[in-house]
């Protein structure tokens, strides 16, 4: 089986799910004729027709609202945000409507909202955001963020089949930079399960998305330069969190970094740190440290962006501090 890119893995999942289930359809801005701003949906319209690959007006709120309405009727919509930054326009629809619908009325919203997230591409303040924290805080939504091509495919298939709304945050830095070999058959990555991306005994880095690769780089260098055996946990699902996987690794290594590309205050790292504090306090040999972006909008200049976003060297510095504590 040939390797395919992260982006191709997403597309493959869409193709296979649309083949499998006639209720699955895509909607979003420029997803049909043009095949999407990043060409994720390229070829879908030719294969499945305009009726199932719907080009929409520039209306994120209506895209999400219409997906919810179609989902009520048994469809399985996959809504694209052209850049995930624009999901802010649908915040009301997602939090007030989609997230509460099942709880209030029993009407489910089995739907996916997906879009390119993340930085390291000099996209500037409106094409680089990591919006997960706003939605992790909303009961009723699931959030996934694949780091590998295999999980890009497997998690999207799981999201489409899920009975609730899943926000699928695909990382645009990874689109064409990483490849993977898809497992044969119906490859589904279960939602809610983290992955041990690298095993180690001395220290754990808990992260997700593109940061997984930086954590793996840092782990290799720390092994060579410091003789540290670093474990890397790839969360894969951000809501609901896989507490068992997190706690198992903490209890094994006793030293923890929580890293994300998102800004610091109110970010997921704070929540994970609290959970570790509540459940693993006696196992800790050092304070849990966060490695995150600075609390500023994401600037477009490569120099500024590199400073704002966490880098491999930042992970190594924090790891060394935790290791010698």
């Amino acid at each position: 089986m040939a390797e395919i890119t992260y982006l191709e893995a997403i597309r493959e999942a869409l193709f296979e799910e649309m083949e499998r289930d006639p209720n699955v359809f895509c909607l979003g801005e420029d997803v049909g004729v043009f095949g999407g701003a990043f060409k994720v949906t390229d070829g879908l319209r030719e294969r499945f027709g305009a009726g199932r690959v719907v080009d929409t007006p520039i209306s994120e709120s209506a895209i999400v609202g219409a997906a919810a309405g179609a989902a009520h009727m048994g469809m399985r919509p996959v809504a694209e945000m052209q850049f995930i930054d624009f999901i802010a326009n649908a915040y009301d629809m997602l939090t007030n409507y989609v997230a509460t619908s099942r709880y209030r009325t029993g009407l489910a919203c089995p739907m996916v909202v997906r879009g390119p997230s993340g930085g390291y591409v000099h996209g500037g303040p409106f094409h680089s955001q990591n919006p997960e924290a706003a939605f992790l805080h909303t009961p009723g939504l699931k959030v996934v963020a694949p780091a590998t091509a295999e999980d890009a495919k497997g998690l999207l298939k799981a999201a489409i089949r899920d009975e609730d709304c899943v926000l699928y945050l695909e990382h645009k830095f990874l689109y064409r930079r990483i490849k993977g070999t898809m497992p044969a058959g119906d490859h589904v990555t279960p939602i809610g399960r983290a992955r041990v991306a690298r095993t180690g005994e001395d220290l754990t880095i808990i992260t997700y998305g593109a940061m997984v690769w930086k954590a793996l780089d840092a782990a290799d260098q720390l092994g060579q330069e410091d003789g540290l055996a670093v474990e890397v946990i790839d969360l894969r699902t951000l809501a609901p969190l896989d507490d068992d996987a997190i706690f198992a690794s903490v209890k094994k290594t006793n030293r923890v970094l929580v890293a994300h590309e998102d800004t610091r205050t109110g970010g997921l790292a704070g929540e994970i740190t609290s959970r570790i504090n509540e459940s693993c306090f006696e196992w800790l040999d050092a304070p849990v440290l966060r490695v995150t972006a600075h609390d500023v909008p994401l600037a477009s200049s490569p120099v500024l962006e590199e400073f704002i976003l966490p880098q491999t060297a930042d992970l190594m510095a924090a790891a060394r501090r935790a290791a010698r504590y």
Partner: protein
Amino acid sequence: MAGKRAAAAARRGTPAAPPPTPTTDQKLALYYWMRLTRSLEERLVALHRQNKLVGGVFRSLGQEADAVGSAFALEPADVVSSLTRNLGSLLVKGATPVEVIRQHMGTADSPTGGRDLGLHFADIRRGFIGHVSPLGNMVSVMAGVTLSFKMRGERRVGLVYVGDGATSTGAFHEGLNFAGVQRCPLVVIVENNGYAYSTPTRVQTAAARFVDKAIGYGVVGERADGNDVLAVYDLTKRAVNRARDGGGVTLIELMTYRRRGHAEHDNQSYVPSGEVDRWAADNDPIDRYLRVLLDRVKVEESAIGAIDARVAAEVDEAVELASRSPSPTGADALRGVLAAPPAAARLWYR
């Protein structure tokens, strides 16, 4: 060819053939639903004053014709998304008085089990989806509901209401534009009742008429006297037929008047004196319709009396049933946020 001609006519506006005039039985049914709406709301107000309800009571007093006449134009498989003052629409689509009272009481056996208030409830089998408080959102949701009808080739139609105030939201604009360009089988009714909470229409928009907004969205626009139940029914039926025949969206403006405050707590201090009394005396939709039934349709007074008695008995029975409904227990709150896991984690100290 007939289908093509109908579709072409639909795009131009009012279809060539008007819908058939309602039968006498249908005309009496319209009266029944309006009377039931008003009596049920009056009972809710009484229960509210006895402190037996959770949350407020939002009356549709004076707007019953708008809700009932429009929903009556739908077929059983069609879907309606009701708004604050559309109790009548929900009843026509099969919601029961006891459900409505339980909803207002927040009982365990209410449609939402005490999770949401008033008319915020749904049953897709009966074809209704209650609204949410962020106004305008349901236009987008119903665009999606009706998009699914189009995708599956089902001859079903959606109806969604907004108030004069909700037309100012971005959600209304996005939803109507989306439905318009997708030619969804959707009817959008703007209930112009003069006020959004305390804000009069002249402060809501510089537009002279809400129906004029239809031009901007490229959809058919129609306007009717919302307090004339037969006119509401006729106009909505035309729009529903147009939608069913592939003619896309119709925006209907119904002219009506909100005779009570936003909810029962609101003393309407912002309303010019005499305005409410004038509408009550001259333009009550039930009084007007009674004159039509008695003078023009030649319905016997006894037939009206029988309906009034039936309504009173049904409301009494519903109140009696609801009074025996249990409250939810606190931990019920954890269930059903998601399909999986089936319940949220219970905090260890609770």
